[in-house]
């Protein structure tokens, strides 16, 4: 197994773990952590599969660079919304998750 495959497989496992975390965890800050793990897993799959040949493919690397910057902006917006929710309701879980 080459380098690319090892990290692509790792990325697949990270993505699945992130999705399971987002679905199963109720606490919103932990959900944001799992969402970031999902994103990192997807980036690893992209670049890991790009390195299969001997010369590295630069197009997926540019896409992942864009993806990292957009992911931090999405995380910041999610954190702003969580803080606003906490200011308004005092809770850190969504209402239907609290009842479940």
């Amino acid at each position, binding site marked *: 197994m080459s380098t690319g*495959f090892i990290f692509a497989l790792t990325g697949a496992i990270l993505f699945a773990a992130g*999705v399971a975390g987002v679905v199963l965890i109720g606490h919103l800050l932990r959900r944001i952590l799992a969402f970031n793990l999902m994103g990192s897993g997807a980036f690893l799959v992209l670049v890991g599969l790009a390195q299969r040949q001997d010369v590295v493919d*630069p197009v997926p690397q540019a896409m992942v*660079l864009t993806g990292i910057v957009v992911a931090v*902006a999405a995380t910041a*917006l999610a954190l702003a919304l969580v803080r606003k929710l906490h200011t308004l309701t005092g809770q850190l879980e969504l209402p239907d998750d609290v009842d479940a």
Partner: protein
Amino acid sequence: MKRFSLVVLVLSLASAFVFFLGGAMLELGPTAIDLRAPVAAHLAESGVTHPVTAVLLNYRGYDTLLEIAVLLLALLAILAVVGRAPASPTRAAHPVLQALARLAVPLMVVVAVYLLWAGAFRPGGAFQAGAVLAAAAVLLHLVGLLPGWSRPRLGLRIGLAAGFALFLAVAAGLLTQGSLLQYPPAAAGVLILLIESGLTVSLALILAGLFLFLSCEAEA
């Protein structure tokens, strides 16, 4: 009991997903559309010599234009959510920390300018330079030398929008001469450096703003 069955269902679906995706990855043949050869063939007339920078700012320049627009939109959304919160008072940290920050920040600025310039030849570029500058701003805020930001005033607004506006202006100027974002090979290097400079300044302010606009409601 319902929760336990949900956990089991999600975990088994995730494991099946990993199993099938891993199997598909191991059976992948060579790529049908190989983009390495066209990228390398046209690298000489793209204006830079680093392939990733060429892809980001020349071959797929439209994606970068939309990306900076998305970042600006995210910052506007954060400003809308935070609202009219007062600026947080600066908490001065230990004097040793402040002295260390005063030593580190000029070095970070030099590193950022180097990364911006080196992006044409080796790994680097506008995004890395903007991120280092934003980290310098966050460092200054954490030691108490830079106050938190409340509603942005005119200078800050111009700085936030400058990268996107500059990129749009270059794209509009090129639109009158041909198709969208097709640099003339003679001026491609200069245009890319110009766009990257605007992007660095704007990106640094946006990324720093993601932190500094949020922290203003912390003390309220």
